[in-house]
């Protein structure tokens, strides 16, 4: 049994979650990483994807994160998310809106660099959607 540490999930609007957990899997910009107690101080950007954490009772909860930052400090893990939605509540309409936003971002990008970043974000988003397994029935995900 793993030791518990402090995990906080904050969105711009409010503190979504603050509790003791055993394990958190974060969708980092360069791949998923798992945080356990005593992780070295670490800072990473997050790509749109699924964050899973195991509570002290051993239950696993999954949340969709639309980009942000993860800050692993000696005192615990803080995730600054632009948006966080529990996977269970993640309906097709939410996806459609997210994807539409990302597509608009690709179109609005002026420089090649900005375009590449926006496109990357869109691809990551689609990937996350496939992972959740809601892709069927949502026509706007192409």
């Amino acid at each position, binding site marked *: 049994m793993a030791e518990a540490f402090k995990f906080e999930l*904050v969105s711009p609007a409010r503190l979504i979650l603050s509790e003791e957990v055993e394990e958190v899997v974060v969708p980092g*910009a360069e791949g998923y990483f798992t945080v356990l107690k005593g992780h070295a*101080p670490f*800072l990473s950007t997050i790509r749109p994807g699924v964050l899973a954490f195991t509570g002290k009772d051993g239950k696993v909860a999954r949340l969709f994160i639309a980009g942000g930052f993860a800050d692993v400090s000696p005192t615990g893990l803080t995730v*600054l998310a632009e948006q966080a939605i529990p996977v269970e509540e993640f309906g097709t309409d939410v996806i459609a809106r997210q994807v539409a936003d990302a597509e608009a971002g690709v179109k609005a990008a002026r420089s090649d660099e900005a375009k590449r970043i926006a496109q990357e974000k869109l691809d990551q988003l689609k990937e996350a959607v496939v992972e959740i397994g809601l892709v069927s029935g949502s026509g706007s995900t192409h």
Partner: protein
Amino acid sequence: MPSLKSLRTRIASVKATQKITKAMQMVAVAKLRRAQQIAEASRPYADRMSHVLANLARAFEGQVDAPKLLAGTGRDAVHLLVVCTSDRGLCGGFNSSISRLARDHAYRLLEQGKEVKFLCVGRKGHDALKRTFGDLIVEVVELRTVRQIGFEHADAIGKKVLDLFETGGFDVATLFYAHFKSVINQIPTQHRLIPADVPATHATVADSAIYECEPGETEILEDLLPRNISVQIYRALLENVASFFGSQMSAMDSATRNAGDMIKKLTTTYNRSRQAQITKELIEIISGAEAL
């Protein structure tokens, strides 16, 4: 001496006004409570953000290749003032105190020979500033149709500021809003957005752990700094909403009290003139009877 009838109508109209101000006050109280909760709920994010930023920024201290949003463009010639006010009035000195602070700042800069540009968020600030600085206002954002300010609204404003910055529109950006200190006290505040104002006091020994960064420090900072601007604007907007209702509440409270005083005075005048009228009529009758 006004006639009895005109006094009666005046009293009635003041009473109607009092009812309106009273209702507005009550609405402001209810909305203030909500706005306050939302403003407080948004604080953890902004706090953590500045914490992370402070940690990262120290690594770049004094370096030449630090991102422009952190270190500035190296010049100080063109200033952008982002003035956040409300879209509606009837809130005492709320809007005028913010625009006064911005105006004073602008005058100081102009005196030093700097160029000044305005970005107005909210109609009232624009109204107040366009008389003196009409041609310096580059953009006006109105949030009138918005019922609850969300992060996306702040993000949209942040993007505008960034676009302008990247095209070389300005060197220094300052944000103006009213800090919500308490229900009766709102302080007009200015806060530097670009170059980022990193609080130095955050660096305590426990925090100064050496961070490993992924992808890299520069990449993270490049991602973090634009977002920080949106977060700062978001926070300012929420503080503003709370301040607006606080200010409106006290303004409406004093308006209600003033109306009450006025009704009392008018009623006294009304009663006096009514009495005088009766006395006059009595004298007429008595002197008429005596003459017989």
